[in-house]
């Protein structure tokens, strides 16, 4: 039984299943909701199966159609891919359950096919082994994300989506140019092969610049974050959750992967990682300040994403001397943020449904009337602030450990200040959930599934705080972090 379970090509299922059901949802809209939920539910054991395979047999490789590189497409999964896939599966399932109750008929018919398509693109991205396939999946993901953003058809949603589309296309083209340069210089697009062939040359520097710029634009690192707040704030709540939690992480994943294998060993220590660290620090501070100024919840949460993305980049300058700790921290922060931020956006959706608005100062005794929602926001906040016990705390601890051991006081100060600012904007919201609004309004019913989806995702972010040992052990499969220490 176990051998059969292990022999199934889980990687292929992860990509084909959502793709197929997405098309079926498009063709037969009546089946959309039920098929969508079932698919996202089935993705979870598929990821578990893949994890089991990796844990038993080591890194997972699969050549589609039997054709291997350089002309064929290979699937590759190590510990890092697995964790990203797991985050996608969990957040995807939670958001899907939420969406069943959230969307009414007309919007649901458009939502499910595009969401499943996005899911297929995400899974394919995390399973890609070569840089061109990454381009294709990146582009697919971006287009699906833009379409989802524009779903409501409101003025803000459309302009936000348009801005997002232009940014994402620019990013992809820049990335593609970099891919072209790398292929034309070294004759391969496979990441592992490129890692062995690259040497520090003008072509590699140009490729780094282009691909880096493109991916940073897609990850919304300061100062290329301008498109994110309008897009994430005007999209429907479940879409915002997916965008902040997963889509932004996908481009970060690519950047991380390329840095660890191709660019880091060559140019690490030459100022690029310091630059990334500086931009990350600026993102943390700028994003947090902007979040503080917001009067609407969705914008506050969107700016919080800008800040949290900055934390991920603080690992770059620290990694040269303490690779495993710094990268583990970044991955842990990415995972925790995915769960916590998704929960926060779902909470915003609940509050919108409840009161018809998301103005923070007018939240009306939410803690008493929507306790599960308020609890979800509180738990998610614990992770965002980096307070124990939560996944965010573990990530923050590891980053601080690396920074203090290396005497990087600037980074330490940014991390501490970032945490304090996060606490300020988070408790601004929580404080108002206890008080009465000046003008009370008639509450609308919020379906239990929506409240529970938000709560369980937030609980996941907190539980991650207790699972550091097994999760970090998983990341170690494939040894991708220690291999990145700078080559002399």
């Amino acid at each position: 039984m176990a051998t059969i379970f292990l022999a199934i090509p889980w990687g292929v299922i992860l990509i084909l299943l959502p793709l197929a059901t997405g098309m079926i949802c498009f063709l037969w809209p009546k089946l959309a909701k039920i098929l969508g939920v079932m698919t996202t539910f089935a993705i979870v054991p598929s990821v578990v199966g893949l994890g089991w395979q990796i844990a038993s047999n080591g890194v997972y490789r699969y050549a589609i159609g039997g054709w291997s590189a350089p002309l064929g497409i290979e699937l590759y999964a190590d510990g890092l891919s697995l964790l990203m896939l797991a985050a996608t599966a969990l957040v995807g399932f939670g958001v899907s359950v939420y969406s069943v109750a959230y969307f009414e008929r007309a919007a649901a018919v458009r939502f499910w096919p595009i969401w499943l398509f996005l899911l297929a693109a995400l899974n394919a991205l995390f399973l890609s082994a070569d840089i061109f396939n990454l381009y294709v999946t990146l582009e697919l993901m971006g287009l699906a994300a833009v379409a989802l953003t524009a779903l409501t058809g409101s003025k803000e949603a459309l302009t936000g989506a348009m801005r997002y589309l232009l940014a994402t296309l620019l990013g992809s083209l820049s990335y593609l140019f970099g891919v072209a340069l790398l292929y034309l210089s070294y004759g391969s697009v496979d990441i592992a092969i490129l890692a062995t062939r690259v040497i520090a040359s003008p072509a590699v520097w140009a490729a780094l610049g282009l691909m880096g710029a493109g991916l940073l634009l897609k990850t919304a690192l300061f100062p290329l974050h301008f498109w994110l707040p309008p897009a994430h704030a005007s999209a429907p709540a479940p879409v915002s959750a997916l965008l902040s939690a997963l889509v932004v992480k996908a481009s970060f994943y690519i950047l991380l992967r390329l840095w660890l294998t191709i660019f880091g060993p060559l140019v690490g220590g030459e100022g690029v990682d310091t630059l990334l660290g500086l931009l990350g620090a600026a993102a943390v501070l700028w994003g947090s300040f902007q979040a503080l100024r917001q009067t609407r919840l969705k914008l506050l949460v969107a700016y919080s994403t800008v800040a949290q993305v900055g934390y991920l980049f603080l690992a770059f300058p620290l990694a040269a001397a303490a690779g495993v700790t710094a990268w583990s921290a970044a991955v842990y922060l990415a995972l925790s943020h995915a769960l916590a931020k998704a929960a926060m956006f779902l909470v915003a959706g609940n509050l919108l449904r409840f009161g018809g608005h998301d103005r923070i100062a007018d939240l009306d005794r939410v803690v008493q009337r929507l306790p599960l929602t308020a609890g979800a926001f509180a738990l998610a906040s614990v992770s965002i602030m980096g307070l124990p016990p939560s996944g965010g705390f573990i990530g923050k601890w590891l980053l601080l450990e690396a920074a203090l051991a290396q005497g990087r006081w600037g980074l330490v100060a940014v991390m501490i200040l970032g945490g304090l600012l996060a606490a300020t904007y988070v408790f601004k919201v929580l404080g108002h959930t206890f008080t009465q609004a000046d003008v009370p309004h008639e509450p609308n019913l919020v379906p239990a599934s929506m409240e529970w989806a938000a709560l369980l995702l937030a609980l996941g972010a907190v539980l991650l705080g207790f699972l550091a040992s097994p999760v970090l052990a998983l990341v170690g499969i494939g040894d991708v972090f220690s291999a990145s220490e700078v080559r002399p």
Partner: protein
Amino acid sequence: MSTAFLYALVGVGLFCIGLYALIVHAHLLRKILAINVMGSGVFLVLVALANRTENLSPDPVPHAMVITGIVVAISATALALTLMLKVAMETGRAELPDEGRE
């Protein structure tokens, strides 16, 4: 300089022209055109340098990449044009509002 590199330089030039136009022009149709020009630039680089060794037959892999890229570009352009039309219908102008903080 060989023909291949000349074409490649033109491709780089197209990329830069497109980038400039994307940033400078406000009208959405021009921005979408700019993206397309940039894309064409990258494709030109790929196709040109597929033929960089003059005596042997051209490398098929960049050609495959360009074909994929064209397909992606077409889908993206279709989406972009539809969005632009909707934005124009909703706001009355085919331009993005100023990127101020809301």
